[in-house]
């Protein structure tokens, strides 16, 4: 995205809001077990923050999360998911059976840790995909 909607007011407002949006996204992912939330919702919030920075400051001014990096994030998310799932068979359980993880916690808490890990993977995937789709569509628009 080569152009930006930037003006000093928009720039100041987005700089003020960005850390809080990111923190809220992380909170929604992490706290998805005890309150409404989860990987998808948190990932969408974080992606919205990235897109906000893109809209206000353009590609050059904001974080340069290139499409390749976003693609790597996406694949890393799926990799975390499959990797946590494969820990089950390694420790003698079934695929995606988090109860087999060797942690000294109560049974329910072990499964909560496992599902928190896959929620983080899902959040990374959603963030990467939404950024990737936004970049692809916007750059196609610039090409005419």
């Amino acid at each position, binding site marked *: 995205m080569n152009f930006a909607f930037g003006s000093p007011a928009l720039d100041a407002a987005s700089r003020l809001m960005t850390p809080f949006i990111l923190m809220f996204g992380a909170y929604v992912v992490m706290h998805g077990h005890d309150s409404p939330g989860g990987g998808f919702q948190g990932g969408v919030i974080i992606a919205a923050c990235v897109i906000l920075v893109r809209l206000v400051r353009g590609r050059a001014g904001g974080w340069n999360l290139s499409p390749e990096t976003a693609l790597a994030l996406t694949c890393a998310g799926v990799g975390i998911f499959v990797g946590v799932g494969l820990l089950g068979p390694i420790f003698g359980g079934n695929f995606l059976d988090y109860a087999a993880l060797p942690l000294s916690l109560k049974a329910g808490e072990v*499964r909560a840790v496992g599902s928190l890990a896959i929620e983080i993977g899902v959040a990374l995937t959603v963030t990467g995909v939404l950024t990737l789709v936004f970049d692809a569509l916007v*750059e196609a628009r610039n090409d005419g």
Partner: protein
Amino acid sequence: MVRLSLIPFLALGAILVAAAGGLPPVGDPESPPATHVSPRYIMFGHEETGAANLVTGVLADYRSYDTLGETTVICVAGLACWLILGSRSRGDKER
């Protein structure tokens, strides 16, 4: 032309309205979707998955195969979007 194509949709609408009368009323605690498998999720979900939010418990634990497939779907969708539109670097001359 447009009028003619409305006829099957009006017929479908009549069928749907008639079928809505046969469904359990909205909010009925004894309806089939509320009595088949969901009581088990509600009764034991917090204890078994450690997640007070039962939606997260169902999504990430009981039905994590489902979520794995779905994560793969959106990963592939992002890849497809990038490959369809990111043709500039590969010298695509067709446009």
